[in-house]
């Protein structure tokens, strides 16, 4: 807690708060969920970075998508992402959410997850080890510092594009759009 740390805290408490208290909600989609228990328990303690698993998306600001995303799970992921309070970050585990990975030609999995929800960080590897997860967390810190972890802002501004992609995949969606769709259209036009 040296001097410039305190100055940083005083200048931007919200940003520092987000850095050192990432309450994570992890979506046990694919095979990545096996990596999360060792991360949060004694062997590799994630709590020293302030990362704690929480029960509901309302209380979280970090969304971990661990492993391949099937079409049916994507609905739940979109709904969970939209239920999180606004400064939120998402991290994709492993190669499957990046480009479909091993299931690149399967009819039932999503190939690029960031077509449907904005992703702030990727962790490569076909199920990354816990050390890779901590590298991701520290990398996320630098992103937050440099204001590049702006997934939620991109979701807000390009919402009509994301919504269009989602409707193109699912046809008509059960839940109403999160942000009103009209103002984006004339904002761009």
């Amino acid at each position: 807690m040296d001097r410039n740390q305190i100055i940083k805290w005083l200048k931007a408490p919200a940003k520092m708060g987000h850095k050192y208290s990432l309450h994570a909600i992890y979506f046990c989609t694919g095979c990545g969920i096996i990596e999360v228990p060792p991360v949060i328990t004694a062997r590799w303690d994630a709590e020293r970075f302030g990362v704690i698993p929480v029960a509901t998306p309302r209380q979280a600001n970090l969304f971990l998508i661990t492993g391949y995303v099937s079409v049916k799970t994507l609905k739940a992921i979109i709904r969970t992402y939209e239920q999180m309070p606004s400064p939120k970050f998402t991290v994709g585990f492993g190669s499957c959410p990046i480009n479909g990975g091993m299931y690149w030609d399967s009819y039932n999995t999503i190939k690029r997850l960031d077509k449907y929800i904005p992703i702030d960080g990727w962790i490569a590897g076909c199920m990354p080890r816990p050390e890779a997860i901590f590298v991701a967390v520290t990398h996320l810190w630098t992103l937050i510092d440099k204001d590049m972890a702006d997934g939620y802002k991109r979701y807000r501004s390009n919402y009509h594009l994301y919504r269009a992609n989602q409707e193109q995949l699912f046809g008509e969606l059960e839940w109403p759009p999160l942000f009103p769709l009209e103002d984006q259209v004339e904002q761009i036009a």
Partner: protein
Amino acid sequence: MSLELLLIVAFGGALLSYLFGKICPQIRDPFAVISSVALAVMMAFLYGKTMESPFYFGFLGLPLILRTNMLAWFFAMAISILGALSVIFSWDYVKDRERTDFYYLMLLLANASMLGIVFAGDFVSFFVFWEIMSWSTFLLISYNRGRALGAGMKYIIMSIVGSVSMLIGMLSLYAIYGTLHIATLSKLVPSASSGYLLFLFILFGIAFAIKNALMPLHTWLPDAYAESPTSFNGVLSGMLTRMGMYGFLLIIYVIVGAARALNLGPGIFKFNYILAWLGAITIVVSTFIALLQNDAKQLLGWSAIGQGGYMILGIAFGTSLGLAGGIFHTLNHAVYIVLLFMSVGAVQYRTGGQRDLDSLGGLIKRMPVSFIGALLGISGLIGIPLTNGFVSKWLIYKTLILEGHPFLAFAALIGTWGCILYCYKFVHHIFLGQLPEKYKMVARAPFSMQLPMIILSLVILLFGILPGIPLKVINTIGTSFGFQSLNVTTWGIASETGTLNTINIFAAVVAACVIVWLIFKAGPKAVPVAQEDTYAAGAAIPKDRYHYTVDFYNPLYRMISPYFKDFIGGFCIKLAGWTQNVCHGIRQMYTGYIGHYVMYIVLFLALLIFVQLKWSLW
């Protein structure tokens, strides 16, 4: 402003509104409201006057007298105000029902007869008004036919038992003292033998315990409350059931006087100990049974029985503090039970008579005023600081602890915590949670229902923050009974063994709320969101199936349901069944053949001769 004029206005208003109903129905409702409000206003002018005037001589040489003192004025004021509010409430509630003239006649008659009881100066008029009250209530309870007839029958039978025991008590008084005038009796009776006093207490006690629903005699109350029309429930639960309390006060403190009443009977089995222990048992047992109810009005009925126990605990120990607590709790309970029944009535009015707690929900979005009324009602019922219930319970607990009865205080406190559980269940099942599909378009309660709710909510907060106003009046009642007065400040009781200062609590709560509100305002504004957008692990919310009400305190039910069944109700039913069998057996005798009857006569004669020969009785 003589008393006869008051009673004429009361009874005349009832009859006239019935006539108006026959002639032209539109005038009847406003006339009923005007007459009851006028009654309340005239009652206010009666403050502090104590006068006595006989109004009828021809009754077997006994003068029927009307008198008023502080106690009578206190109860009369409560009756008239609650009666007026109930009439305003029932304006919209019974508008499109049949037999509304009959309903208004009976409602106003019940109010008028309660006023009569309170102003009665002698026992004959007391008994006459008591009977008018009983049968007008019976007719109103069985107003909507069906199951209500059974509930009304149970009520009228028990009140007749009470009236008869009271009648015997009066006859014994008349036989010994030759007069039924309360003022003279209160001078003569204290010198009577303690055996006779106990006999009087038991007789009058049965009548007033039935009316006040003390534990073994409470079985009529839950059904009566559940089946009677909700607008009448306010009057029935507010002051009508508390006429029993007025009766206890009359007997213990006016007729017999506190000195003799409080050490009647050997050592531990003093009369007021037994009364207090009955009150304590009533609190605990009825609170836990109230937890198990799934019908809103049954739940409120059982809670009314429980609160009756607090009042008995208050007046059982003849200290000025306890008496003040008991009387103040009678008034507070009347205020918030009427408010709760009105909110249930408003919900029933809008949802087509629905009162089953498991099929309601989320009505706060559609009926906010009823929610606020219900919320303040249950906070009064629980006794949350800054509501009137807290002050009266504080007084009662203080007497119990300082008098050295910790187990009674423990029973009362457990009653409060059980009360929290069923109060929250009441509010949660009706107003919180998911709004079902069929109630999405429910409108607000009409203004004529919202007005009484708002008035009563303000009264709860006013008496909670400034309890000095009612406590001064109650203090004068206490001194009229001969107790040394409490020094009552406008915001509580100041005494060396622990003062109550509600203004400090009020200021602290307001300051804390302001600070927390400012902290909350510092953060970003919260986005309002519909009830469908709630956490369900990413799944869609199923319509009408995402609301948890059935078996709300399930683990608690399993633990307490074997012990807290309604034993006395069950016992009464078994008793009824047993008597029916016995009578059925006896009926077999009348077979209709002449030969059998002749045989019975001959046998009986033979029996007589045998007895005469053996023991030669004659």
